[in-house]
Every structure is written in structure tokens, then in C-alpha cells.
């Protein structure tokens, strides 16, 4: 799934449940598709479950791109029609007129043939490029495509997001151990919270020794380490102060 600022584009939407399609060797004569590699002829398909429900995958989709019409790229019926689970009002981009006709015969209202000249979806240019389907034995015509634009954004998880916000704040939280010594812990989840009174917040893992010490003593010194402490910071982050005196 590609997410642009304005559009969700679903590519090769084959949405069948795991194992529901069977294997190429068991296809009826009305579906004249063969696996070029004989070893693959007997693999039950799809080989894995979808990562989300079909409804979730199809929600918010603005365009479909189908690189070629094979039954392991688009859901196919015995009569040769395709795309049963899809919303047939949503535009489909295909590689050639033959594939466009199949989608039209399947009830899709807006089918466009993608060309080498490309087309624009808002400020995203999508261009058809040659694709080689099958490395040793040709497996039929297929297309690749290139998306170009200044506003293409991809979906991230929170760890990936932290790369985008880099550099991130880095502190050494100083707290007091039971024996009166100082404990050091590098913490990046830190923010100013209030000017008046001056307040800050920092988050630690639930099992963090530093967090426990701050909650027990009610005190912490949040420090910004200087460049001379780079190695110290890395070393402090690789152990827990519960059993180790990090100052030493």
C-alpha cells in the first residue's frame, strides 16, 4: 500500500484467504494459468494470511494498480472476471487494453491504461515502466511503475518515526541509589511541560531502575551531557543501575 498526501493506492489487490485458491496444478481448464516452475505448481495459495482484514485494506483506497492479470495478483472467478471484493467505482490503472477490457467486463467503471508518458494523481506522477515477469521462462506481459513526487509519504511505526525526528533530545538522568551513590541513565523520552512553574517530564520503562529510584526519592537531576561524555552515555545505556554502579 502506497500512501501519498492525498491518495491511497492499492497495488495488485489479491485478497483471497490463505490456501483458498489452491495450487496451479489444480486449476480448472477455464483458468489456463500454469506455474513456470513445476515445483511451484503444487504450492497451495495464497501462502499466508493477509496482514489486515479485507475491509481494513480496502478502506480509504483511492486507486488500484494491477500490474498484470494473473490469479495470484488479482482475485479471479472461473468465468475470467476479476476483482470481486473490490469497490468497482474506484479507478483501476492497468498495463494495456486487453487487461482494461477484462476489468470493464468485470464491472469496473473507471479503467485507465497506464502509459510510459505517465499520469498525475494530484501531484504524484505514475509512469509505466517495462517489467520482466519470470526470470528463466517468460510468464506473460506485466508492467512496472514508478511513482514520482515531492509529497510522497510512507506509513511509519514509532521507531521509524524517531529517525525522522532526529536529532532527538538526549539526557542523562541522575538519581540516587539506595547506598547514596549516583545512578546515571540515558533517557530520550524527555520534554519541557510548563514555563510557570518550570516543569519537565521524562518517561522510563516500567521496570527501569532509574524510574524506581526517582519515584522512591522524589528527586532527579536531568542533565544534558556534553560531547566528552558520548562513550559514557552509550556505556550507561547498555546496563542497568540495579546491579551496576555506572559512575565507576
Amino acid at each position: 500500500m502506497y500512501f501519498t498526501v492525498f491518495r491511497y493506492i492499492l497495488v495488485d489487490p489479491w485478497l483471497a484467504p490463505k490456501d483458498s485458491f489452491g495450487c496451479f496444478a489444480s486449476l480448472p481448464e477455464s483458468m489456463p494459468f500454469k506455474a513456470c516452475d513445476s515445483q511451484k505448481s503444487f504450492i497451495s495459495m495464497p501462502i499466508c494470511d493477509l496482514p489486515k482484514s479485507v475491509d481494513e485494506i480496502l478502506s480509504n483506497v483511492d486507486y488500484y494498480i494491477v500490474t498484470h492479470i494473473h490469479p495470484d495478483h488479482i482475485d479471479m472467478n472461473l468465468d475470467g472476471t476479476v476483482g470481486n471484493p473490490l469497490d468497482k467505482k474506484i479507478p483501476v490503472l492497468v498495463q494495456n487494453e486487453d487487461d482494461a477490457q477484462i476489468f470493464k467486463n468485470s464491472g469496473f467503471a473507471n479503467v485507465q491504461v497506464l502509459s510510459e508518458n505517465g499520469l498525475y494523481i494530484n501531484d504524484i506522477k505514475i509512469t509505466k515502466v517495462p517489467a520482466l515477469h519470470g526470470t528463466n521462462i517468460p510468464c506473460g506481459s506485466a508492467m512496472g511503475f514508478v511513482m514520482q513526487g515531492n509529497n510522497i509519504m510512507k506509513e511509519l511505526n514509532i521507531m521509524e518515526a524517531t529517525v525522522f525526528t532526529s536529532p532527538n533530545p538526549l539526557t542523562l538522568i541522575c538519581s540516587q541509589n539506595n547506598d547514596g551513590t549516583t545512578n546515571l541513565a540515558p533517557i530520550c523520552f524527555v520534554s519541557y511541560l510548563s514555563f510557570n512553574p518550570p516543569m519537565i517530564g521524562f518517561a522510563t520503562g516500567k521496570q527501569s531502575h532509574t524510574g524506581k529510584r526517582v519515584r522512591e526519592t522524589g528527586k532527579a537531576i536531568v542533565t544534558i551531557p556534553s560531547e566528552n561524555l558520548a562513550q559514557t552515555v552509550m556505556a550507561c545505556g547498555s546496563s542497568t543501575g540495579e546491579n551496576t554502579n555506572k559512575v565507576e
Partner: protein
Amino acid sequence: MMPIQDSTIQIPVDTRLAMIATLKQSLEVGDHILHICQVDKFLGDESKKGLYAWNGFSKVATAIEG
């Protein structure tokens, strides 16, 4: 390490900024605990360049302005 007046906690000598803080509230937030603190005193040394976490949190280095 060096002592801080009115605190029993010491800090590293090579520190750019120290915020001496008192915990006011702790709050469970997902898989972390947020500690909300009032800062009793700020101490700074502008001659020292502060460190930041880069590439997410995998690298430690100073920042280059501009």
C-alpha cells in the same frame, strides 16, 4: 562527578545543562511511566556542546546548527 548544592545527587563534570528537579506526579503511559517534575534550579555551561540522539536513538553526537 561533581556535587550540586542542596542536592545529594551528583552529576557528571562534562554537563552542558542540569535541571534539578522534584517529582510531582508519575503516570503510566503505555509501556512507560511518565515522571512529571518541577524544576527547582537550572544550571548551564554554554562552553560545552550538548549531545543528541541521532538516527532514532542509535547514535550519539552533537548537533550542527543550520
